[in-house]
């Protein structure tokens, strides 16, 4: 936090505190209520109290009982992990090529990377959907993962960091007889750990929370992710089963929130810097 650089007058400061407090409360209060409701027994759900009088985990059991929630979690966890891993590896390779080598067409290729950043995936979903169907990947993990493996933003960010590297570092390693993969693994990677970690968090949250593509490409428990699963649950119950619904909401929000509370400041920093560069 930067030190206070501007001293506002007292009444203005007071207005500021009130507005911020209201805004912060409008965010925190609903989240606390969701958490509280998820621990309430059925007879307390529509009562006025924000917190359960009799604490119960029944709603959490119900989520797994009423829908194949375990399967959804597994699909989400596995496809997110595989996709983020693939995105990072592929982006690192591409960024390394852009930063380290001089080759004909480099400028044009990089312009195509920047251009791809501006094409929203919701625009091109139709031909991709048709292609995935032709490949027989509809409602599979491959259909969820493969079309999203190339991440232009990641290439852009990693290239920026790699460009700051002194070329001598590569050359010295090459002279010692290290091959390219070796250089990447033991020279490059240790030096970009922070940005890789930051990208991992952002990509993970992004993929875990994704709605549009899983909606298009999955249909059954075979590949359906938590976000689509909870949406189906909402449709089926339309609020009649609030306890389990709120338990499910809590469960699928937990991974990102847990990481956030573990290392708050870095996470905020990470999202802001990636957001600004994107």
């Amino acid at each position, binding site marked *: 936090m930067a030190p206070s650089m501007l001293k506002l007058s007292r009444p203005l400061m007071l207005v500021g505190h009130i507005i911020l407090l209201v805004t912060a409360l409008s965010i925190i209060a609903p989240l606390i209520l969701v958490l509280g409701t998820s621990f309430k027994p059925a007879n307390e759900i529509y009562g006025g109290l924000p917190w359960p009088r009799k604490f119960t985990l029944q709603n959490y059991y119900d989520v797994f009982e009423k829908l194949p929630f375990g399967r959804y979690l597994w699909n989400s966890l596995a496809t997110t992990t595989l996709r983020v891993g693939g995105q990072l590896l592929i982006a690192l390779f591409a960024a390394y090529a852009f930063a380290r080598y001089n080759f004909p067409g480099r400028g044009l290729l990089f312009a195509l990377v920047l251009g791809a950043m501006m094409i*929203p995936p919701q625009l091109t979903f139709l031909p991709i959907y048709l292609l995935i169907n032709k490949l027989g990947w509809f409602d599979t993990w491959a259909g969820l993962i*493969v079309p999203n493996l190339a991440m232009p933003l990641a290439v852009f960010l990693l290239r920026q960091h790699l460009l700051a590297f002194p070329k001598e570092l590569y050359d010295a390693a090459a002279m010692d007889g290290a091959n*390219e993969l070796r250089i990447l693994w033991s020279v490059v990677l240790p030096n970009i750990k922070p940005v890789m970690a930051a990208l991992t968090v952002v990509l993970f949250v992004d993929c875990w929370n994704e709605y549009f593509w899983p909606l298009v490409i999955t249909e059954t428990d075979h590949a359906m992710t938590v976000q689509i699963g909870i949406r189906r649950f909402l449709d089926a119950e339309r*609020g009649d089963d609030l306890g389990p619904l709120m338990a499910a909401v809590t469960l699928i929000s937990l991974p990102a929130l847990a990481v956030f509370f573990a290392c708050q400041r870095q996470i905020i920093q990470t999202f802001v810097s990636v957001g*600004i560069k994107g």
Partner: protein
Amino acid sequence: MTQTLELVATTRIERTAARRKIDLRPAVFLAPFVVLVALFTYWPLIQLVYLSLFKLNRSGPDRFIGADNFLGVLDNAQFHDAAYNSLIYIFLSIPFKVFLPIPLAVFIWTMGAKLGNFYKAALFLPTLLSFVVVSIVWIWMLNPVMGLFQSVIGPLGLQMPSLLSDVASAIYVIIGVGAWKLIGFNILLYLAGLSAISRDYVEAMRLDGAGDWVVLRRLIVPLLSPTILFVAISTVVFTIQQVFTPIDVMTQGGPLNSTTNLFYLVYQYMFESFNVGYSAAGALLIFLLLGLIIAAKMIWFEKLVHYS
């Protein structure tokens, strides 16, 4: 002199030698990315143009019909609603998501670290939640029968209106929910911009007797203008694309198309009316619109922004 000439000669020879031996390493490293981007970003764009020009049946493109799909989409009442709503989504987003966070960021900026960090953390939370989760929480709170707001105002003898099923209000609910999710993140972007403003400027203006308002208007806002423009552009792009999720979860575009937008309509053309040609033509029209926005951004950047 001769030495220099020799040196030049040898480097030239080396260079030609290097040029003759094509280095395959960058190609190998780039191959996976390039193939994937070509296959899943650029090829679909070309494919869209192709699909939009044909009448399609179940087995695929049937016959060439030129601009008929485009004319059909442009003549479609749903498309008019969607285009109109998209403009409302964009224009109302600017005051709530772009301008409102500026004073909030300035307030946090002038606070001590402890309180500031608390606010930053609280405001950041919705960024981490999925839009599905956010939509579900708001559906619950707004529910006129057993929602949160009803349980608060019910005992006072008041009845919560059914905001999401009312043509007049549904779109504003979705805009509000979008703002709830995005405001905190935009505040943090502004704080990053504010942290680059030097204390000396503020102090110099203070010495000249400038009050709060003058400092804000004449110093902070101009110096922040690159950030403001960046936030505006990213918010517009976010609003056009990401609002798909609350639309689909909360209203499915209804009631009476009052909340649908262009992306949602293109999705519906494909998966509800199964009209591939319309969907492709609609997507290309959005592409055109986005191109215009990006062009406007380039022009504005030159004109409006004060660079420090």
